[in-house]
């Protein structure tokens, strides 16, 4: 499979703290990759670096064959990268519809528009004129995913979409994500729930203290291997 995204020996720092160390991996066209690891393993920082919110200190990021390491975040959106950030980060004073439409301006042309997002997330339809600040957690998450989809991404980065949501709502969110897969969108997701990550992803990458310690496709990894890598126990090794 031709890689859509390839990350090559990436280093990202927060001041003196090196959050991501020498990370290399690839995401293929239409593939779903889950990024797991404990808090502080560098997952969010890695996603934000790919989206362009953090400038890496070293290494390269290539997307669709072109180097995007130094490209501004808003230009990456135009190329087809969209991040659903941790904590949703909606524009609280804008209505649901405005939150969605504001993202359509700069994105790529494609099948996603306001109508289709409201079709996929029917719970948002009656809330179009409601300010994002007064939405429930699940409604906010749906809006955040919808907002990312409005840019017609080829690679969707999902950061902890289940955080702070009721299990029923998480189930619904993942159901709608499953629907996206049919559209050929590649997904890179960070997920705390290991079982869920291993269920939805084609491939799982486990990070520990900024490094990738385990990588493998769904079939070849056991839950124990991933758990060990997750907590830095043992020397579980597997090849992709």
């Amino acid at each position, binding site marked *: 499979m031709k890689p859509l995204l390839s990350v090559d020996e990436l280093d990202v720092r927060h001041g003196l703290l090196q959050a991501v160390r020498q990370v290399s991996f690839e995401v293929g066209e239409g593939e779903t990759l889950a990024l797991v690891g404990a808090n502080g393993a560098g997952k969010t920082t890695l996603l934000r670096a790919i*989206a*362009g*919110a953090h400038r890496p200190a070293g290494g390269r990021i290539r997307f669709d064959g072109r180097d995007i390491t130094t490209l*501004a*975040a*808003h230009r990456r*959106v*135009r190329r087809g990268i*969209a*991040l659903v*950030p941790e904590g*949703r*980060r*909606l*524009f*609280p*004073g*804008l209505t649901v519809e*405005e*939150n969605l*439409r*504001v*993202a359509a*301006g*700069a*994105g790529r042309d494609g099948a996603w528009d306001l109508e289709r997002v409201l079709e996929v997330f029917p719970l948002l339809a009656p809330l179009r004129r409601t300010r*994002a*600040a007064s*939405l429930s957690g699940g409604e*906010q998450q749906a809006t955040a995913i919808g*907002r*990312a989809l*409005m*840019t017609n991404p080829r690679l969707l980065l999902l950061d902890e979409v289940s955080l702070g949501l009721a299990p029923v709502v998480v189930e619904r969110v993942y159901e709608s994500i499953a629907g996206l897969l049919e559209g050929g969108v590649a997904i890179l997701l960070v997920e705390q729930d290991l079982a869920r990550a291993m269920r939805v992803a084609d491939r799982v990458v486990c990070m520990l203290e900024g490094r990738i310690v385990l990588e493998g496709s769904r079939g070849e990894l056991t839950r124990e291997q991933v758990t060990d890598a997750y907590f830095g126990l043992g020397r579980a090794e597997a090849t992709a």
Partner: protein
Amino acid sequence: MTWVSAIVHGILLGGVYALLASGLALMFGVMRIINLAHGSLALVGAYMSFLITEHLGISPYLSLAIVLPGALIVGYALQRTVLERSLRAGPLVPLLTTFGLLIVIANLLQYFFSPDVHSLDEGSIGLKAISVSNELAIPWFDVLTFGVAVVVLVGLQLVLRYTQVGRELRATAEDADTAELVGINARAVYARATAVAVATAALAGVFYGMRSGFDPNAGASELLYAFEAVVIGGMGSLWGTLVGGVVLGVAQLVGAQINNEYFALSGHLVFLVVLVARTALGVRGVGFRIRFVRRSVA
């Protein structure tokens, strides 16, 4: 002057303040920049209009066709070259930068135009008034100024509310980092906002120049009233700015009605009362609370 006429003229005077204050409110609302050079930029507009009317022999109104596009370019360039850098250094630095700009502009104007008072010719409209009664005559020029202020503020509000550019501006004002992540070029949005703000300043400057004489140091004093209008109106709210300007104008002229010396004082007092009420009691805005900036993150 009767009380009624003091109030009517106060409302119209409020239009002058609101026109100058609109750009101030826009920049504060979008970027949290307190632009101390705003009044000076308005003056530059007035002086440019003066140059154009002198050399081309056209009216100040027609000169706007050159002044306004020029101001847009100046504003855009100002943001990209100076303000953008100072914004990166923290919230205090833009304040110092624009203060420096105020001094530089005042000195440059003094150098090129001398400290003498200049004025712009408002044309035949300046002589006409609507006479309501023997004691109350409303000058057409004041009505025009107020109308322009309303058109600018309503226009800005409509653009912010209903256009993609407006949505991008509000989104960037609320969370510039996230705006970038949905494809908005935040720096270009900021530059556009400053361009519009400077253009409204220049427009206000030309009307100010037709209304009364101006000298190179008039920028700072006019800025003070514009600031008071913005603060009374609720910091960064466009509708509120119009209300703030009107409240200030009425306060000044009603004060002057009591005693001519109370003109500025009564305006400052109302400003102080609103400021104290807002900080001490948590009262916000003056009835109109259609603010386009909400910093609180859900």
